């Protein structure tokens, strides 16, 4: 089995990495977190649109990049690393694929071009969050695809303001799914979108974790105490080594989930839950270890570390947290009665 990205995936990833370094500085994240949507945010979104990121999973006949979920994983790890304060996972994994399966090609075009930003809220495979329709990125998006009793529908965000959140970028908007305009989308497509989004945020979490680790490593190399860089002390070395281990062993699990989705592997559901469980745990572990190694400075909001830590906390819990996914895995592995882990929506074959 070739377990890697493939040339197309590598090219896209490297291109994105350079672009995001330039167009998504921490200052931009701070601005969006404070509730403003500067021109730079729109510029970043348009750039992503031009590169074709939103069309990663769309087939080439419809103007997409025709790539698979493994490329999606690579893309979203980069947007995670950069802390992109915009609904990239939602767009790539959910909005574009679902709209392309609907009659709303007009809206699809607007989303693909970056003119319209939509977010989403669907039931996680673990069932968490059901009944609490809180849609993220409410400050930058104008509406969302949301789970309804009949499947999926479209809501426009009203003028009601977002909930206060730990990470200002997340700006959650409470919506009423019963007021959504129904979209005619088949259940298999919805199911696939949920799985893709779960893997997508897992990839973001790996990227966020790696970003926090890089920040910490840079810091401890230069910060001196007792006449030496604190990075030379064994305790610090071991904390950061543990952080690296967490990231490096979560990453292939996320890639495998993407690969399973892409190849229709019978173990896809299992691999998706494993990816989310490992990515959530890794990110939470890395937040603590990197925070600890940098000391009080990392406890300030002036310092950039918290931008990524707060996002990691939110995403670790989104789409089902680590424990919920492990519990689901216990069912899938035959360790508990199946009824405890029955999927939220009707099971149907992934096409």
């Amino acid at each position, binding site marked *: *089995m*070739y*377990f*890697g990205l493939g040339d197309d995936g590598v090219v896209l990833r490297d291109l994105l990495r350079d672009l995001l370094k330039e167009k998504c500085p921490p200052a931009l994240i701070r601005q969006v977190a404070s509730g403003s949507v500067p021109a730079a945010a729109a510029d970043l979104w348009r750039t992503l649109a031009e590169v074709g990121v939103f069309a990663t999973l769309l087939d080439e006949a419809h103007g997409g990049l025709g790539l698979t979920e493994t490329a999606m994983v690579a893309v979203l790890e980069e947007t995670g690393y950069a802390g992109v304060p915009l609904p990239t996972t939602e767009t790539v994994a959910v909005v574009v694929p679902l709209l392309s399966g609907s009659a709303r090609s007009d809206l699809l075009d607007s989303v693909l071009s970056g003119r319209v930003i939509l977010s989403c809220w669907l039931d996680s495979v673990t069932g968490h969050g059901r009944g609490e329709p809180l849609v993220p990125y409410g400050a930058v998006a104008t509406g969302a695809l949301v789970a309804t009793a009949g499947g999926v529908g479209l809501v426009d965000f009203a003028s009601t303001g977002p909930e206060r959140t730990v990470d200002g970028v997340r700006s959650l908007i409470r919506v009423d799914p019963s007021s959504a305009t129904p979209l005619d989308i088949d259940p298999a497509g919805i199911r696939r979108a949920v799985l893709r989004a779960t893997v997508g945020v897992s990839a973001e979490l790996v990227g966020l974790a790696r970003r926090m*680790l890089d920040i910490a*490593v840079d810091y*401890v*190399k230069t910060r001196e105490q007792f006449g*030496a*860089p604190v*990075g*030379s002390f*064994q305790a*610090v*070395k*071991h904390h*950061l*080594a*543990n952080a*690296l*281990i967490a990231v*490096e*062993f*979560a990453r*292939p*699990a996320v*890639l*495998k989930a993407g690969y399973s989705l892409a190849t229709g592997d019978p173990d896809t559901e299992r691999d998706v839950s*494993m990816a989310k*469980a*490992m990515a959530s745990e890794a990110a939470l572990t890395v937040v603590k270890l990197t925070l600890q190694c940098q000391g009080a400075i990392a406890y300030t909001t002036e310092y950039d570390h918290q931008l990524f830590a707060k996002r990691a906390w939110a995403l670790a819990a989104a789409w089902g947290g680590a*424990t919920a996914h*492990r*519990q689901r*895995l*216990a069912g899938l*592995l*035959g*360790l*508990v009665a199946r009824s405890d882990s029955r999927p939220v929506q009707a099971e149907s074959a992934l096409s």
Partner: protein
Amino acid sequence: ARWAVVAWPERYGGRDASLWEWLIFEEEYYRAGAPPRITQNGIFLLAPTVFAFGTDEQRDHILPRMAAAQDLWCQGWSEPGAGSDLASLRSRAVRDAAEGGWRLTGHKTWTTRGAFCTHLFGLFRSDPGSERHRGLTYFLVPLDAPGVTVRGFQRLDGDDGFAEVFLDEVFVPDSAVLGGVGKGWQVAMATTGSERGLTLRSPGRFLTVAERLIALARQRSESVPPAVLDWIVGRWMQAQAYHLFTLQQVTRIAAGGEIGAESSLNKIFWSELDIGLHEAALEVLGPLGELDDQWSRGFMFSLAGPIYAGTNEIQRNIVAERLLGLPRK
């Protein structure tokens, strides 16, 4: 049947298997419940060194006999005063020019399967004035040579092959030197990567343990507390993660890349994974865990994992220094 060393060239008793094929072989070997291989120290630790540094004569002589288990090799590195700090070793080799060889004197310990082995590969200080990692030579020593005394002692898990080896002016010819006089450290270190990571512990071993753990938990599902199920799932996931991580590495190696210090990540991960899998099994077994059997022995042996092949503390230092670039001092 040439199954002992599938990745070796046919000429030396192997099957010229690729790294991928070797991984598959290992998975099937463990899945079949095949016994631990008594030749493994030779195969995984000495053989790569012989391939890299041996003369043609050494390769032609040593490797086939190793593959056929005619010679059983143990590793003579640690000494009572030299564990993690291997460079402080004091066993010495004194040149005996008249006889065309060397006289080895010293005390090696923690020698896995030493009590059952026929040969030892070890590091000895051949330059009397040298210190630390300089002036060492890598020797290949027959354990039936005059002056050798092997004393086995029992390990926590009941294995009694563990041994100390006393050498009292043991003669070995010049042909017993591997890789050049005074070059012992470089020769030994060139293959420590393989000891720690990939080749010492293939994922197959842990995938099989994880499968057995799942089977055990299913068997006893009525009595397993839900909290323990969470442990089991977590450790099962780690076994899968180790497998996937290794596949990524092999993908890179097959494309011409190298792992280098990354093998320290492998070592830390598999050694702690092994403990976790066995701890979970003992939780499932409850009071039955005190019976002397595969699970309890496996648990006790797993505790050695963070110690041998370079302690996990040393490994974490290596990860921090060589992979993250943190300053040594």
